[in-house]
């Protein structure tokens, strides 16, 4: 893949990826933007490992998910759910307040369940694709989806 082709693909995928990462980071824009940048740069530097037969978007999501896990391992900060519902994240706009409840509900989910739920409901990936992105098995992903859905049912009773 040439650099020009890569830029064109990124241009068509960046909004979807950034939306996914914003939800994955529970509304923390700074973290989401850092992760998006890290994932895209990593993708560019790993173009040699990309196989044309693989879907570019799914490959990008896999890199982004791994970048997310790495950042979590490095991070020592924890944000309790109460803080997520009451304190505005840096650079939060009215938009952030609009989705505050959803972000707080996502924050309750463990990272794998949150990722599975977002890849399924937000990004529209099938269970098999999610298993490939997360590097897990299909039964494990189904379990994570089920648990994530049940927890969201409790934390978002009005929406679900």
């Amino acid at each position, binding site marked *: 893949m040439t650099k020009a082709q890569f830029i064109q693909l990124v*241009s068509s995928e960046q909004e979807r990826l950034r939306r996914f990462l914003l939800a994955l980071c529970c509304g923390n824009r700074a973290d989401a933007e850092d992760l998006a940048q890290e994932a895209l740069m990593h993708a560019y530097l790993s173009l040699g490992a990309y196989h044309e037969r693989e879907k570019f978007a799914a490959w990008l999501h896999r890199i982004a998910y791994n970048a997310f896990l790495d950042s979590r391992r490095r991070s020592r900060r924890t944000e309790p759910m109460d803080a997520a519902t009451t304190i505005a994240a840096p650079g939060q706009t009215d938009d952030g307040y609009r989705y505050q409840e959803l972000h707080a509900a996502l924050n309750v989910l463990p990272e794998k369940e949150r990722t599975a739920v977002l890849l399924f*409901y*937000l990004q529209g990936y099938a269970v098999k694709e999610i298993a490939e992105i997360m590097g897990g098995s299909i039964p494990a992903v189904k379990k994570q989806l089920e648990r994530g859905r049940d927890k969201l049912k409790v934390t978002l009773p009005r929406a679900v």
Partner: protein
Amino acid sequence: MTEEYIDDMTNQDEDLRQLFADYRPDLGSGDDYMQRFQRKLEAVEMVRQYVEAHQRRNRLTVVAALVLGVVLGSAVMAWVLLMPADTPIIALGSTAQWLVWIEQNSRLLTLIFLSLIVSLGIIGILTMRQDNMDASRKTLSAVHKNA
């Protein structure tokens, strides 16, 4: 599972799908984002080219040193082995016992010394190669994190 449970799960599924379908946070201008991204990509590309050029120069230096070492080392070793067995490599002209011993075993000691030099050279080449790979990895990683 009762039919009611299955219906309930399906409805919840639809509710969740709709909830996330309505998730449209403001991410700013896509064009602005791509312009910033491409600028960062240029910076990463510049560093990558610099690192590759640096590695190419190092490789040439290492190959030249290797060739020179092989040629000189072979020449010295051939000279040592071709000298008559009863002629010492070094003549110290001393009567001290340890110096006489060195003189008598100078051929063997020279060969051992040459082998040590070759071993150190190989270790040096491998270490330099590993350092180069680590340096280029760390440099590129730092650039795309800070760009």
